C-alpha cells in the first residue's frame, strides 16, 4: 500500500518560490493500478521525483507498506528505493550493457553473486517476452522492446510497487497497448501495486482501476474508475467519456445524459419518446466499456421553447434521474468547456 500525506514541494527560483506540489494526499491500496493524470506543468514530474526520493519533499510523507521514505536516512534510502521499481518514459537503459546486463544491474548493486543474478535476469527477460534478445544492446532494440527491458529491470529487485512515469508516451499506439497489457498482466500475476503517471487518458482507460487528476500541484478529482466516470460533469468524466464534436448552433435545449450498466444498454432517446411522446435529437454520443462496466454518454437537444411544463427540459432531466441516469441541462459554453477538458487530458476522440 502506498500512502502519501500532505506532500509539498517548493522550489526556489532566484528569490521566487514555486510551489510544484501543494499538499498531495493519496492512498493506493495493494494490488491497485492507479493512474495520475494531468497536463504538462501540473506537477507530475515533481511527484515522481518525490515518490522515488530523487528530490526530497519540502514537507509531508510518502510511505510504502508502512515505512516512511521521506524521512529515511541516506543509508536506509538505498534500501527503501529498492522496494520501488520504476519504469521511465525513455526506458533509460545503460547503452553499454546488453539486455541481460541491464536487467541484472539492480541485483549487481545489491551485491548478489553472478550466477544468481544471471538466473534471475533470464527469468525476468522471459517474463517480458524477450528471450531471444538477452545479448542484444539497447540500440539494437525497438522502442517497445526497450521499454520491456525497462520493465524487467524494474522488477529485478522484487519491488512491492511499480512506478511508471509516462511509460508509453514515446511509443506508437500498437506498441503502447502491448506495453500497457504487460503492465496490467504483471500487476495481476505478481500482486504489484502500480502507479502510472500519464497525460493520456487512453492509458488510464486501458489499465487503471482508479485515477486521480493532478492540477497545479493538487489532486482535484479522483476515485475508482467507474465512480469518477459516472460523476457527470466532472473533468475526469468528461475526459474518460469524451463526446465527438457536435454542431451546437442548431438551437434547442441541451441535456447531457450518462447511463451505466443496464441503463447504458437502452437507447435514451427511445426512453424519452416512450414517456413524453416527442422525440429528441441526439447531437453526440459515445458508448464505452470502462473497468468492465458499459457507459453510454449522450448530448441531446430538446426542441426550442420546451423549457418548462410537460415534456420540458426540467421534466425530462428529473425523469431521467429517477430512471437511473445522470442527467443535467447544459449551456453551449459548458459543453465546449467539457470538450476542451477532454482534449487537454488526451481523451478526445
Amino acid at each position, binding site marked *: 500500500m502506498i500512502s502519501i500525506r500532505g506532500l509539498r514541494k517548493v522550489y526556489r527560483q532566484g528569490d521566487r518560490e514555486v510551489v510544484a506540489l501543494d499538499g498531495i494526499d493519496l492512498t493506493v491500496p495493494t494490488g491497485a493500478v492507479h493512474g495520475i493524470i494531468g497536463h504538462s506543468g501540473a506537477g507530475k514530474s515533481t511527484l515522481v521525483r518525490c515518490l*522515488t526520493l*530523487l528530490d526530497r519533499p519540502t514537507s509531508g510523507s510518502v510511505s510504502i507498506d508502512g515505512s516512511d521514505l521521506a524521512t529515511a536516512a541516506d543509508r536506509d534510502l*538505498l*534500501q527503501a*528505493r*529498492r522496494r*520501488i521499481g*520504476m519504469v*521511465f518514459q*525513455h526506458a*533509460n*537503459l*545503460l*547503452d*553499454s*550493457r546488453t539486455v541481460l546486463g541491464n536487467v541484472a*544491474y*539492480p541485483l*549487481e*548493486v*545489491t551485491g548478489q553473486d553472478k550466477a544468481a543474478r544471471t538466473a534471475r535476469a533470464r527469468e525476468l527477460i522471459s517474463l517480458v517476452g524477450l528471450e531471444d534478445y538477452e545479448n542484444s*544492446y*539497447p*540500440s539494437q532494440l525497438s522502442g517497445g522492446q526497450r521499454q520491456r527491458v525497462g520493465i524487467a*529491470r524494474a522488477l529485478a*529487485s522484487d519491488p512491492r510497487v511499480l512506478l511508471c512515469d509516462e511509460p508509453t508516451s514515446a511509443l506508437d499506439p500498437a506498441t503502447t497497448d502491448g506495453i500497457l497489457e504487460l503492465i496490467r498482466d504483471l500487476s495481476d500475476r505478481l500482486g504489484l501495486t502500480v502507479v502510472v503517471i500519464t497525460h493520456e487518458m487512453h492509458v488510464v482507460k486501458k489499465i487503471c482501476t482508479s485515477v486521480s487528476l493532478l492540477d497545479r500541484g493538487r489532486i482535484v478529482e479522483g476515485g475508482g474508475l467507474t465512480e469518477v466516470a459516472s460523476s457527470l460533469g466532472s473533468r475526469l468524466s468528461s475526459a474518460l467519456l469524451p463526446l465527438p464534436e457536435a454542431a451546437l448552433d442548431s438551437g434547442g435545449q441541451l441535456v447531457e445524459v450518462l447511463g451505466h450498466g443496464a441503463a447504458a444498454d437502452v437507447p435514451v432517446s427511445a426512453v424519452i419518446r416512450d414517456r413524453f411522446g416527442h422525440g429528441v435529437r441526439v447531437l453526440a454520443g459515445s458508448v464505452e466499456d470502462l473497468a468492465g462496466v458499459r457507459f453510454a454518454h449522450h448530448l441531446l437537444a430538446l426542441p426550442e421553447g420546451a423549457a418548462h411544463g410537460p415534456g420540458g427540459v426540467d421534466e425530462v432531466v428529473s425523469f431521467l434521474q429517477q430512471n437511473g441516469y445522470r442527467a443535467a441541462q447544459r449551456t453551449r459554453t459548458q459543453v465546449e468547456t467539457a470538450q476542451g477538458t477532454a482534449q487537454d487530458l488526451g481523451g478526445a476522440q
Partner: protein
Amino acid sequence: MNWFQDLLQNPALTDALPEAFVETLVMVGVAGVFTLAIGLALGIILHVTAPGGLRPVPWLHAILSSVIVNITRSIPYAILMVALIPFTAWLIGTSIGPIAACVSLTIGTAPFFARLVETSLREVPSGTVDAARVMGSTRGQIVRKVLLPEAMPGLVASTTTTLVMLVGYSAMAGLIGGGGLGRLAYNYGYQRFDTAVMISTIIIMVILVQLIQWIGDRIVRAVDHR
C-alpha cells in the same frame, strides 16, 4: 643509390635516431600513464562536485576548474616546461632526460585530459543516472558502473587526443633536455642542416600519431554500443 648508402652510413640516423625514438616512447608512455590516471581522477571529481552533480561541492569545483583553465589555457606549454625546471629538479633530482621531462608533460596535459573526461561524463544522459539512483546505487557504483562505462567511447577518444598531444609536447620537451625525436630534429636537422634527419623525424612522428589515432578509433568502435 648513392643517397641511400649515405643514409645508411649517417650515424645520426643509424645510432642517434633509434635511441631518440625510444626516448620519445618513454616520455609519451610514462607521461601518458600519469596523465591518464591523474586526469581521469580530476575529471571525475570535477563532474561529481559540479552544481547538480552526484555530490555538489561548489568551492572545490570552482578551485579545480580555475586551476585547470589557467594551466591549459593561459600558460603555453613552452613556458610551463621551462618554469617547472626547478620543481622537476627538486622532485626527481634532475631536470635532464626523458623521465624528468615527464613531470612537465604530465602537468601540462593532465588538466587538459581532465576537462575532456568531464565533458565525456557530462554527456551521459541525466535520465540514465536517475535510473541508477532509483535502483538504489551508491555514488561509487554510479561512477564505476554507469558513468564510466556509458562514457567509454568519449573517454577513449579523449585518450587518443591526449596521447597525440603528448607526442607533440614531448618534441618540445626534448629541446630543454628531455631528449627524444624533438632534440634529434633540432640538433641535427636544424643546427647541422641535416635534411635527411629532419625528414626522417617528421615521417616517424607522422606514423606514430597515425598509429595512435588508428588504434584509438578501433577501440572506440569496439566499445561504442550507442
